[in-house]
């Protein structure tokens, strides 16, 4: 048997490709061709081009001029006083919005997983904000948080708390954006993924723990959380990457202000490229953001081995 297979392989190797293999190759590449063209035109070429551009001065109107490492030095060594603070702000934003969002999403998924009546209806209520266009979200929340006539002020006045100037104040603008983003993300895809993950947990496991006298919290700590760790991990990676790249919401709600309080790295790239038309420098900054995102993805994947538990995995 084995020898006949080898013989066949040898003979087909001698003849080159069999008719079937040739057919597969031709059809395979024909059906693949749209992606190959798109990959070359809109991924490969732009990636190489943006590396090349990052070593030039280019304002679109005049031909690019090679300037060596000047863009990179300017960006990395503090010549651009907006650069590092904007990265710091993006991280601060990710730090306050992602963990909170993760905990709230999980909590919500646990609540919705309690065999409620009309689960689909409740799920819809929490999910709809995540489908709302960020521009509409930004305007609705600007109105809710309006410091003179917003409904928030009415609530704060009623409770007797001092009302912050939300999006209008340098210290509150960024947390305000985080709050708005929570509204748009807590009940979104992350929560749906948690909900599906919860439904995948074998009921026998929970029942067995209950027989052993485990309370609700203990069951959650020892069974639900470990079994859910791959999903938590997935949502964490997606959440951080999304937060570091936030653009539309900040662009519309605050425009990066006041006094650069919400000026994120994505806004810096946009302004540099499309307001100041400094394409070479913007390419360098975009690579710095990309490097951070890629490094974080790799870091999270390597760290995840320590705490993410996959069902069916044997651990030594």
């Amino acid at each position, binding site marked *: 048997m084995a020898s006949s297979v080898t013989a066949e392989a040898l003979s087909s190797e001698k003849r080159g490709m069999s008719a079937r293999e040739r057919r597969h190759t031709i059809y395979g590449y024909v059906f693949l061709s749209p992606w190959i063209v*798109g990959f070359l035109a809109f991924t490969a070429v732009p990636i190489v081009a943006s590396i090349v551009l990052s070593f030039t001065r280019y304002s679109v109107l005049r031909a690019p001029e090679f300037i060596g490492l000047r863009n990179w030095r300017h960006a990395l060594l503090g010549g651009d006083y907006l650069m590092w603070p904007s990265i710091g702000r993006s991280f601060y934003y990710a730090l306050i919005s992602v963990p909170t969002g993760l905990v709230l999403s999980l909590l919500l998924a646990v609540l919705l997983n309690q065999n409620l009546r009309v689960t689909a209806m409740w799920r819809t209520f929490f999910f709809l904000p995540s489908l709302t266009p960020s521009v509409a979200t930004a305007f609705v929340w600007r109105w809710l948080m309006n410091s003179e006539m917003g409904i928030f002020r009415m609530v704060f006045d009623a409770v007797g708390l001092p009302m912050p100037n939300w999006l209008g104040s340098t210290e509150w603008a960024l947390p305000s954006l985080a709050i708005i983003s929570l509204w748009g993300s807590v009940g979104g895809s992350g929560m749906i993924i948690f909900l599906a993950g919860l439904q995948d947990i074998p009921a026998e496991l929970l029942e067995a723990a209950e027989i052993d006298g485990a309370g609700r919290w203990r069951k959650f700590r020892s069974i639900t959380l470990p079994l859910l760790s791959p999903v938590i991990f997935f949502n964490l990676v997606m959440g951080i990457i999304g937060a570091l790249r936030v653009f539309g919401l900040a662009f519309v709600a605050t425009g990066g202000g006041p006094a650069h309080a919400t000026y994120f790295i994505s806004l810096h790239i946009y302004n540099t490229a499309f307001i100041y038309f400094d394409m070479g420098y913007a390419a360098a900054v975009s690579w710095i953001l990309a490097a951070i995102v890629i490094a974080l993805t790799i870091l999270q994947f390597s760290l995840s081995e320590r705490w993410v538990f996959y069902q069916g995995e044997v651990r030594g």
Partner: protein
Amino acid sequence: MIAEAKRAQSLSQETEASILSKIQLDRILLYVVVALGSFIFMFPFMWAFISSGKTVSEINIFPPTLWPKHPQFVKNYTQIFIEAPFLLWIKNSLVVTALNLSGTVISASIVAYSFARFKYPGRDILFFIMLSTMMIPSEVQLIPTYLIFHKLGWVNTIKPLWVPAWLGGGAFNIFLLRQFYMGIPLDLDESAEIDGAGPLRIFLTIILPLSKPVLGTVAALSFIGNWNNFMGPLIYLNDPEKLTVAVGLRVFSQGVTSSGMQAGLAPPQYNLVMAASIVVAAPCLILFFVAQRYFVQGIVTTGIKG
């Protein structure tokens, strides 16, 4: 003896009853928490709607009224279509969405067919390359891509917003479709092949009809992505009459009229901004009610098995 047994019975009944009431209390509390949470999440929509029916003088009073005293919903919603070319912007958004969505669905499903059903040298490497492109943030491609479209003379047209979709349809969608196709039994292809069907026939008559759910997911997510796309139209479209609604809403809120189309006018009051925001958001919300299961299924399969 008998008295003891009776006492034990009544004791067990008592604990049963108290357990039952504890469970009931828990359920009630659960519903209260979920309802309260729903109210908080739905409130911005409700408040936007209430505000969109107020008069200019009523929108500017504090404390705000909880329902418009002189409701003028019809007037306000008509007003935004008069003051700004929302009808045109909606049409533009629909055109961009239709062209992009059909390109995404068609090209991603063909490319995924190649990855799922054909064996050829280089396939696995190319598949790996495709997956790795998902890791690279699109900001890196943004500037060179803009320059390419600039060279092609496509800036200030809608072409940059839909042409790329026809070339692959996005790594994520290809991956999603390929995973689904892999689950379709090969026997189906083979028996069709014996009946003399070629690869294209098999694709059109077997693979595609069986993939309706996942195609629905790709289409639904693509609709939302296109309708909500903000940065693309912001960068590529300049003329006010070419804008999509997402960018149009921002322009409108900053004070631009359809008659003059020039900035510098007083921005509209919040009653009109809220009406416009609702008009812009409505198609996404309606789509969710129509295609709910495609959204949920899609998110679940991509999140868990992806």
